């Protein structure tokens, strides 16, 4: 009997799908670990959508000086020189790898001269001569457009897919495909995964989205994920989805003082931990002051707290802190986080992702988001904003993060976006009324889930010590 001496690790670990990292942690998260290794993948999207950058980041991330080469074939869309020139501006670019382990070459001329069928020979020679671990073909759509008949294309793809399946390599077909071509173009039939990159114009800026259309043998995060293109390549913001488990019961029974003089009495002791509170009111009604007090109370109680503002920059916020007798430096040292985002700069995906990451990393227990209306202006898709806010509120509940969302109302309109009220466990309505030359601010608790709260309208005054209710 012969001993069974040889079986390498990869052959023994049979059931786990080997993954190829994209070089981007967030994108790997969306793909549940990366692209399946030894597969054929399609990266699709209109010109300028970031496909090539995604592929290049992956190439550099997976190339190892002493490892097997990574090949990038350009076809008829762009000359190699141009591709390489733009590649150099990225931080992941590594000069020492180019021309050695990462090899760019053009196959456009050969394809044009000898027909698309020559791709079979090109790939076969690449495999036998170079044993590449990754092959990127950009643009594959150009090869499709070059083919003279459907049978020719299908025959070539059959052979190419056979070769790529036989050999231990991972292939990427990059192309300016549109969604309607998926069902008709034969290259999609041989693909193990497909990722679509899209861009939509929103005012003066673009919103970019990425979506997994197929990932054979694996689950993935569905839906649209926002991303930006930076010098690091694609910065991806995985769509925030609701947590798997509901919040623990004991968490929700704990009370947290608001820090607003007189308000906790009306709330039968304070807000419930982990719950979301919407503070509504016209401009000047005291929303920001109330929210600021809530955060300061948190800091004074030793709870890491965070203030997210789309309107007031850090300097303005520090002035406000000072008005409450708190030095900004001390407050930061005690766990206060400011996040200022100009809402015209970013898409909600990145804002929400940054908020969520900071909450996780810093163990935030109180958070203010001032104001929701700014997010509404920043988004093209209010439905998407709703699901994000909902998911955020759910995560906050699970993690015991008490939140205040401010929302500016106009006139008598209580909730311009009525669906917002479903997101709120508690609603505080601030108001400012004018009688002749006098103004009077008021506060009313409209709703406070699970709290035996007061229902009356109460006077609200802003003193040098902050807000006083009653």
């Amino acid at each position, binding site marked *: 009997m*012969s*001993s*069974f001496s*040889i079986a390498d690790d990869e052959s023994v670990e049979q059931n786990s799908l080997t993954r190829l990292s994209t070089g981007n942690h967030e994108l790997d998260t969306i793909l549940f670990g990366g692209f399946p290794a030894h597969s054929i993948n399609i990266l699709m999207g209109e010109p300028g959508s970031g496909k090539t950058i995604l592929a290049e980041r992956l190439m550099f991330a997976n190339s190892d000086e002493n490892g097997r080469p990574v090949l990038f074939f350009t076809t008829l869309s762009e000359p190699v020189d141009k591709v390489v020139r733009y590649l150099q501006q990225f931080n992941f670019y590594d000069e020492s790898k180019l021309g050695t382990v990462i090899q760019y070459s053009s196959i456009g001329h050969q394809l044009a001269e000898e027909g698309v069928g020559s791709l079979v020979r090109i790939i*076969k020679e690449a495999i036998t001569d170079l*044993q590449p671990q990754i092959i990127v073909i950009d643009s594959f759509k150009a090869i499709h457009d070059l083919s003279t008949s459907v049978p020719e294309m299908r025959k070539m793809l059959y052979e190419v897919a056979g070769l790529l399946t036989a*050999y*231990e390599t991972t292939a990427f077909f990059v192309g300016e495909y549109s969604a309607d071509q998926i069902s008709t173009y034969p290259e999609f039939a041989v693909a193990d995964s497909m990722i679509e990159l899209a861009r939509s114009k929103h005012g003066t800026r673009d919103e970019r989205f990425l979506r997994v259309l197929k990932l054979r043998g694996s689950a993935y995060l569905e839906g649209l994920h926002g991303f930006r293109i930076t010098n690091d390549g694609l910065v991806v913001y995985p769509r925030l989805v609701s947590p798997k488990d509901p919040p623990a019961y004991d968490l929700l029974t704990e009370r947290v003082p608001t820090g607003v003089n007189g308000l906790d009495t009306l709330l039968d002791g304070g807000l419930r931990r982990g719950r979301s509170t919407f503070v509504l009111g016209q401009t000047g009604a005291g929303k920001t002051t109330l929210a600021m007090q809530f955060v300061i109370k948190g800091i004074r109680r030793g709870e890491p707290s965070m203030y997210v503002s789309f309107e007031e920059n850090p300097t303005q916020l520090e002035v406000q802190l000072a008005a409450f007798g708190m030095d900004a430096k001390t407050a930061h040292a005690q766990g206060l986080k400011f996040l200022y985002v100009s809402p015209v700069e970013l898409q909600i995906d990145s804002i929400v992702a940054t908020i969520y990451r900071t909450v996780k990393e810093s163990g935030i227990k109180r958070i203010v988001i001032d104001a929701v209306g700014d997010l509404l202006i920043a988004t093209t898709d209010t439905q998407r904003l709703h699901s994000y806010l909902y998911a955020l509120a759910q995560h906050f509940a699970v993690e015991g993060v008490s939140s205040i969302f401010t929302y500016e109302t106009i006139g008598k309109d209580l909730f311009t976006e009525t669906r917002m009220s479903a997101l709120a466990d508690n609603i505080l309505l601030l108001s400012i009324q004018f009688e002749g030359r006098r103004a009077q601010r008021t506060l009313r608790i409209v709703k406070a889930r699970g709290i035996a709260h007061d229902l009356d309208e109460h006077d609200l005054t802003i003193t040098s010590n902050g807000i006083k209710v009653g």
Partner: protein
Amino acid sequence: MPNEPTASAQAPLEETTAVDAKAPYGSTELLVLVVERDPHVRELEAHFLQHAGFQVAFATDGQEALAQARERVPDVLITEVLVPKLDGLALCRLLKQDPRTKDISVLVFSILAANSRALEAGADAFLKKPLAEQRLITTVKTLIDNRPRKANAP
């Protein structure tokens, strides 16, 4: 055990390979018999094995492989599990039961995660597809180094 008709030894050898069917067995080149249905795998295996200095012969189904193995007694036989007429594991069992062929090192090289089944069938090694040159060549060389008895190495 009655011999299969050996006429199939003339059977379809891969035309693209440099196999010299007339070369007398016992030459210094070690012979690897590849049992494989997929033309792409066959072609790439041939390339890498020949490149590493082996002589390569092919069979596209299990019956043909059995006949060739009995006739030519290769040093190593590489088989996929999924081959027609006689599957790779059954082939392996038959080879290991027969004194004439039991010393042929068998490498099961399959798309299936057939590690333990290959072991039960008496195979000497198992590799899972897809093909990677280094793993394949290293495994074949190790099999030859580990052969139970001194064979025809010079």
